[in-house]
Every structure is written in structure tokens, then in C-alpha cells.
């Protein structure tokens, strides 16, 4: 599926044309299974590895705060030749050289898998939501923006974009089946560079949104409804029916599991709240 192939090529053009000196352009290659990559890291990965918030007083480097600027996009393809598996590219200063700095931050994830198709788009979009799973790396994100802080503690252990990239590759590959290659671009060179990257990727959101709409339509949901539910007298009816739909789906899931031989000891019957 070639929905984002043009954008992957545009990102490559950006990488070639961005005006930075050689010392601000790094390419790192990593290989191995997600487990091998994980075991090579000096930090912990997994749920709760970086709980809470990192206050400025405990922050070594801040990335992408709303004033510095940020962008985040995920591009995927089933053409595996377009993505260089394990390649991490950094354009701009690295974390160890940026103590006390607040850097602009662009992050583009390029994923490839031969079997990937439109129906995978929704779950692939969830892949970079790594929340609290990287020790010492606090991440607050929306669908377009990333705001991250690296703690002084992990900076003292050498945390840099290579470690961040490897962490993302390990986490995404182990959590998201069907991906055979991951390439990551980080940009910290300037707000203007991040803006340019954001403009390349701005079309991605619209295309992704269309893929999601199609996927939901196939499942029988109308996502084009512009009606304001808050002003509708029939809202309680729709709320009840939504509960019914959730219940029906849950019951169907339990039934499927039981039929698959995965014993469900106490299937929960759905009921409509009074």
C-alpha cells in the first residue's frame, strides 16, 4: 500500500537538503531482536519505567516544549525497500551536548511490513504512544506534538538519541506485530527545520484520517455525523444504544474466545444500565 510512500521520499529529500554542518548530522544503525536491543540499553524499558512528571529542576534536556516547537508523525508502507531497518538519523544537537537546553523536536517514525494494509493504520498510530515506558524520559504528546524531558539521572548514564531511538524500536517492534523495519528521524536543529518537517507531514494527518474513516465505515459506524449531540433531545437513546453495542461486542468477543478453546471462566453478560 503506497499511501505514505511519497511522504517517506519527501522526508528523505528533507534529510538531504536540511542546511546543517556535518557535526550536526548523525546516522546510527542498530540491529538485533527487540529483546537484544533492550538488553543492550543502560536504562529500563516497560510500563511504569518513567512514572510521574519530571520537573525542570530535575531535567537535563527538554525537547519540543510548545514555545520551542515540535512535530511528530508516523509513516508506514508495505514496500520494505523504502525503510532502512534500525537506522536512526539525528539532525541537530544531541542530548549530552544540550544540558539545560530546551530544543525544538521533530520525530518521524517510518515503519515497513510486507503485510501492512489500511486496516492496520489505526493500531500503527498507537505504536509511538509509549507513555511512561522509557526510564528517565517523560513524554507528553498529542497526535501532532511531542513534549519530552530527559532526567538528569539517565543523562548521567549517557542517554542520547541513539538510546531513545533504540528504545522506540525495541518497544514498537515488540508491541506491534507485522512490522519488519523501523527507521527514525529526530530533528533538533532549529524551530524552522521542525516547521518544515511538520509541513511535509501535514498532509499525512488528512490521509490517515481518511483511512480511519474508511475503516470505521467498514465496521458500520457513521463518522461523518456533524450533528451536535449536546443539543439533541434524543441523546439518551443514543447513549443507551452505544452501551448495547459495547455489550454486544463484548459478548461476541467472549463467545469467539470460548469457541477458540481459550476458556473464559466467567463471561460477563452485558446489561443496559437503568
Amino acid at each position, binding site marked *: 500500500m503506497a499511501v505514505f510512500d511519497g511522504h517517506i521520499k519527501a522526508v528523505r529529500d528533507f534529510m538531504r537538503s536540511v542546511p546543517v554542518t556535518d557535526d550536526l548530522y548523525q546516522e546510527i544503525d542498530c540491529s538485533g531482536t527487540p529483546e537484544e536491543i533492550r538488553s543492550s540499553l543502560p536504562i529500563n524499558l516497560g510500563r511504569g519505567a518513567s512514572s510521574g512528571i519530571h520537573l525542570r529542576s530535575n531535567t537535563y534536556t527538554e525537547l519540543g516544549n510548545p514555545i520551542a516547537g515540535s512535530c511528530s508523525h508516523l509513516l508506514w508502507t508495505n514496500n520494505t525497500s523504502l525503510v532502512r531497518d534500525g537506522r536512526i538519523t539525528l539532525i541537530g544537537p544531541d542530548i549530552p551536548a544540550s544540558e539545560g537546553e530546551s530544543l525544538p523536536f521533530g520525530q518521524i517514525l517510518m515503519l515497513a511490513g510486507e503485510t501492512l494494509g489500511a486496516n492496520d493504520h489505526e493500531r500503527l498510530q498507537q505504536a509511538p504512544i509509549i507513555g511512561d515506558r522509557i526510564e528517565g524520559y517523560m513524554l507528553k504528546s*498529542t497526535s501532532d*506534538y511531542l513534549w519530552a524531558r530527559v532526567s538528569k539521572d539517565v543523562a548521567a548514564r549517557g542517554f542520547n538519541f541513539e538510546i531513545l531511538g533504540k528504545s522506540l524500536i525495541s518497544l514498537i517492534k515488540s508491541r506491534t506485530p507485522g512490522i519488519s523495519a523501523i527507521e527514525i528521524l529526530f530533528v533538533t536543529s532549529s524551530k524552522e527545520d521542525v516547521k518544515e518537517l511538520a509541513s511535509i507531514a501535514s498532509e499525512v494527518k488528512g490521509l490517515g484520517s481518511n483511512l*480511519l*474513516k474508511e475503516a470505521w465505515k467498514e465496521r458500520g459506524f457513521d463518522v461523518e455525523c456533524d450533528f*451536535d449531540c*449536546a443539543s439533541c433531545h434524543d441523546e439518551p437513546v443514543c447513549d443507551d444504544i452505544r452501551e448495547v453495542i459495547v455489550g454486544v461486542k463484548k459478548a461476541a468477543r467472549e463467545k469467539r474466545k470460548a469457541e477458540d478453546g481459550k476458556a473464559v471462566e466467567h463471561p460477563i453478560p452485558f446489561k443496559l444500565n437503568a
Partner: protein
Amino acid sequence: MRDSRLGKKRLIAVCGKGGTGKTASIALMTRALAEHPATGNLLLIDADPAMGLLSALGVQVRKTMGEVRESIILTSKRGKSEDKANIGNMLDYMIFEALTELDRFSVLAMGRTETLGCFCPVNTLLRNAIEALADNFDTVLIDCEAGLEQINRQVVKELHTLLVISDPSSRGMETAAMIRKMIIEDRVIRCDRVRMVFNRVRGDEEFLRKSAAKLGIELAGLVPFDENIVQFDLVGKPITDLPSDSPSLESYRRIVADCILAEC
């Protein structure tokens, strides 16, 4: 000793009748807490919609929680399906955006909300998020209106200490009595202890001690009238910049050490 029910952080709210010097009191307490090594990470929540505290502190905020609430309601009403699905992530991002971090303390301003309506689930969502944020701090100081229902709905469900600010006027004391009733009898918010501070005291100390005893509220301190505050207010200078030997600041240093840091 800090209460395990509330976790390891100290939660202190300050309230009182308008015009009794509450804003200046909180500004001075903020400075006294920020100077004290036992305070740890300090979060100040301005839950008074008037937001006068921010200018007393000389702080500008980028976003208020009222604006966060507004964004959530508008996204829910008019947003696209994928935006609605992302409200959880958006909330986390926007609350962090609303947190203003300064060198010695952080500030979260509740602000006001434009959209009419109760939206209880939105308030609950925000309150839970604020409580989760507050968990990252050792000491949380909340500036609230005289009515305490609003902090219960929007900020926190329980407190270690409620500090009631009054001046020597009978109206200030009437409000203090009303606040005590809201805590002790109406149980508007769970609170371990209530303490009282009289501001702008000019020699009537014995009378004020007896008044506090009559109200049934333990006295945390008497703060003398301070000409420096009047002068700073007049020219709009942050109260936190008062000279270090200002009598009001010295009083609040004692109140902070004896009533907040020692008791909580």
C-alpha cells in the same frame, strides 16, 4: 507528622473573606515556603477565579485550567472523532502546559471557564488529573475562595490544613465562623485541621486571641500591619519581593515553620 491517607505530600488550602489580605498572605507564605529547605518541591494552585495571586507573585501563566476545561468541552461537542479519541492524551499534554515552573516553585492557575453548565464528569476528570500532578510535589498550597465547594469540585477532595485568613474586623470573623461550620458541620471538604491567621494587627492581640478561641479555631499567628505591603500594592510590585526583614514576612516565616512544616 504527615498523614499516610494523603500520601507523602502536604496539602494546605488558604481561604478567607475578600479584602482581608488573603492574596498577600499566600504570596508571603509562598516565599517563606520556597526559602525553607524542608518544603521540597512546592506547587501553588490559584483556585480563586479572580487570579489576583498571580500579579502578587509577579507570575504570568501560559494557560489556565479553565482553558483546558474549555478545550475538552469544545472537543467533545464539536471535535472530529479522532480528536475525541485523543482527549486523554490531550488532557495530559494541556495540564503540563498549564503548569508554570519557576526556579523555586510551580504554579497552576484554575482561572475561569466561559462555557455555562455543570459538566461534572469534566470536573472529575480534571480534578483527578490535578491530584495526579500534585502527587509529584512535596508541598501544595491552594488559594481558594471563601466558599470551599469549588475546590472540592475542581481541585482536591481532602486537605491536611485549612488556613483561614481574617483581619480584625467583625465581618472577617463572621466569614471565618462560616468557613469553620462548612468544615466541621457541613463537611464540604475532608480536612485534618483548621487554623486561623489574623492579618493587619495593630496592638489588639489579646482580643484577637480570645476571638479565635471563641470561634473554636486554633490560632496559627498574628501578622502585624505592614506599610511595605501597602506601598508594594500601590505601585503593583510583586509582594514576594518585599524586603527580607519586613514584619509581615517574618510572621509568615514563623507560621510556615510552626503550622505548616512542623504539623503536616
